[in-house]
């Protein structure tokens, strides 16, 4: 089962690699009338599609990582605790709507900004997760690679969302600022169990938030194509 999912992930990675590459190309081109823009211009629809695919892939990989981690490190009785980690997630304080009704009622702008906030808030914790997993004794390479891959792609997703915001909302370039400590404050947990549980919580929360990002972006796309039916 997992081998199949791993294979699927691999296929996904291969298929979407060029697309990811495109997304990762710096798209902050200034549209000055006299200058020859050296960066490739991309239409808004295509960019949105690529961002959505990016988000879908990130979610898929994160889900696989979480399952893998759960299988290896979390005993069965404790697995249900992931469902309770809702209010321990780092992003719970973010003012992000969580019901479909609410989501359908918020504006495009807010959708995009929510996505951006989510993405930006997860970049650092993923780095921490990576370092934490590296300290494990028996962490499989696959898990490590996946988490590493996810953290990398998240950065490119952030870039894409930034450009999308600029294109769709005609806003200025948002400063990508990672300096603020923000939501995540981690302290080194010497105890094994707690670090394991915390990593597990991190993975679960990230998986959830990745799903959230994907849903937001898809709703946004639906609104772009067919405004009246996507209420």
């Amino acid at each position, binding site marked *: 089962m997992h081998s199949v999912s791993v294979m699927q992930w691999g296929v996904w990675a291969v298929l979407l690699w060029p697309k990811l590459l495109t997304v990762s190309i710096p798209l902050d081109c200034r549209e000055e009338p006299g200058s020859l823009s050296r960066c490739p211009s991309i239409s808004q629809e295509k960019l949105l599609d690529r961002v959505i695919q990016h988000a879908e892939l990130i979610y898929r990989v994160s889900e696989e990582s979480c399952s893998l981690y759960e299988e290896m490190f979390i005993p069965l009785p404790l697995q249900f605790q992931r469902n309770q980690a809702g209010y321990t997630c780092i992003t719970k304080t973010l003012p992000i709507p969580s019901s*479909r*009704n*609410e989501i359908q009622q918020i504006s495009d702008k807010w959708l995009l900004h929510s996505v951006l906030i989510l993405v930006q808030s997860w970049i650092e914790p993923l780095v921490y997760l990576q370092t934490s997993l590296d300290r494990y004794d028996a962490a499989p390479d696959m898990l490590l690679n996946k988490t590493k891959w996810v953290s990398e792609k998240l950065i490119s997703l952030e870039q894409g969302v930034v450009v999308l915001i600029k294109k769709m909302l005609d806003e200025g370039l948002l400063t990508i600022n990672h300096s603020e400590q923000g939501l995540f404050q981690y302290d080194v947990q010497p105890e094994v169990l707690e670090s394991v549980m915390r990593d597990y919580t991190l993975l679960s929360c990230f998986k959830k938030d990745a799903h959230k990002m994907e849903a937001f972006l898809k709703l946004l796309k639906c609104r772009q194509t067919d405004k009246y039916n996507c209420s």
Partner: protein
Amino acid sequence: MAVLSSSSNLLLLLLMSSLDWLSTPGSAFFMGRHHMTSPAPLEPHITECISRDQATFRCWWSPGNFHNLSSPGALRLFYIRKDSPTSEWKECPEYVHSNRECFFDDLHTSIWVTYCMQLRSQNNITYYNEEDCFYVENIVRPDPPVSLNWTLLNISRSGLNYDVMVNWEPPPSADVRLGWMRIEYEIQYRARNTTKWEALEMQPQTQQTIFGLHTGKEYEVHIRCRMQAFTKFGKFSDSIFIQVTDVPSKESTFPLTLVLVFGIVGILILVMLIVVSQRPRLMMILLPPVPAPKIKGIDPEMLKKGKLDELNFILSGGGMGGLPTYATDFYQDEPWVEFIEVDVEDPDTGEKEDNQGSDTQRLLDLSQPVSHHMNIGFSNAVSFPDDDSGRASCYDPDLPDQDALTLMASLLPGQPEDGEASLDIVKRAPAPERGERPLVNTQTGGPQTWVNTDFYAQVSNVMPTGGVVLSPGQQLRIQEGTSGAEDETQKKGKEHKGSEDSEEDKEKELQFQLLVVDPEGGSYAAESNGRQVGAPPSSPIPGEGYQTIHPQPAETKPAAAAEDNQSPYILPDSPQSQFFGRVADYTVVQEVDNQHSLLLNPPPRQSPPPCLPQHPLKALPAMPVGYITPDLLGNLSP
């Protein structure tokens, strides 16, 4: 690292040992029904919570063994949404008591937020399980797809297998269009009376191909779906049944192929038979025979290697007297055979088709209907050239019909003169008197006889008068007919004229022969002959006959005046040549008399015996045969 691993192992062991303590019946909801093995009394618990569209969900509970709480309303469901630390327990927004179900609508459903459920009885006894908490997206089980149907893609050539394309619609409750849910489908099928389902790979498209179904079997197909990257499947759809019966055309094509095969085999056999039976003709057409030398009357076997001597013998007239007059048809079965006509009288030029007669004839100022030689093409069309080589001319020669002669003459368009000459000859044939009949004969036979003469004539003697004696082997021209002498002369003149051009070519050939050159003469021997012909020309001289040809003064030089310088034509002097035998091919000049004539041989001066058969190749006895060389010439005293 090692400390971490060992401590984690210990932790795990600890946890596993506490597993039994932790697991309660209440966690059956989360763990799944298979873990319910505990015999402890079942307290009221939440059975299941399911969401179909990720926007609403339902929860069901059971009173367990507490039957007193089974009445509706005895248990109440409370939930808490743990999206903030200050959240509270709330009661179910919508009860469906008949089902012991609680329905949460859009407004009360939040995604990505933890929900926890608990049951409370009337007297505030709370039955709560920590494990009954979930995220809504994790409990989504989509409805089964709808509108499942199939189409036949193709049938294998053997008719045993076929492929089917199955397609369906996504469940209407799942908001796929919005992208709210990303669904993937799984098709399962099985044959009619089997129990194991075959599952195809999950994929998000709304159609899929099933390969390798067997005709005649009935298949059952159903489908289910789940959210991508999630674990919980929805229910299976209703089954559809696929069956493809045997295609009847399959059977009809089988005998058709048989018929085709047999037909082709039969045709092949027929063609082979035709080829075998008509093999010779086919061989003729495909491989036409290479023309090989085929000489009429000669056995083709003789043409093979090693039998050249026999061939020469035959060709030279030996054996049976040369080639038989009848055509030994060795090539009877080859009607297309073209024969090479052999001029037997000229062994040197046996196979040449000499249009213009032999040089000897030209030498002796004769022209002949060379049509004798020309038997081109059709072997049986033209009469065989008469071989007169062994017979005297006094015999009745095989006169060709005048018609045949004219025919033959007319066959040669390039030589009208010869034709005329021949005609003249022919005409003149009946003209002369009886006394000149021999002449006529000889004349008419002359052309014939001259056919038989050699290609080259050898002068055997030169008469003081200037005549040249030719060696035996040729028939001498019998012009000793006084009556027709001048006519002959004229005729000869004409002949000369006619054949002059062609004979000029022969001059070179004749030059090495002994010529009588008498500038005075300039005339032809014909004239001398004409003059000298007094005695009736008798038959050709048998045995050795020497003729002398005297160059005559210009007595009778009619049209030949133009040819003063040339008197290459040496004609036998008939009167002196009463002996019309054959002369040797070559002779030696013995002396030159005071009249500048070369004496080749002492003239035997004998009357020619009439009608003696000739021996064609009788050589002169005691006659040194050879050419006169210039130094020898010096010995000859003028």
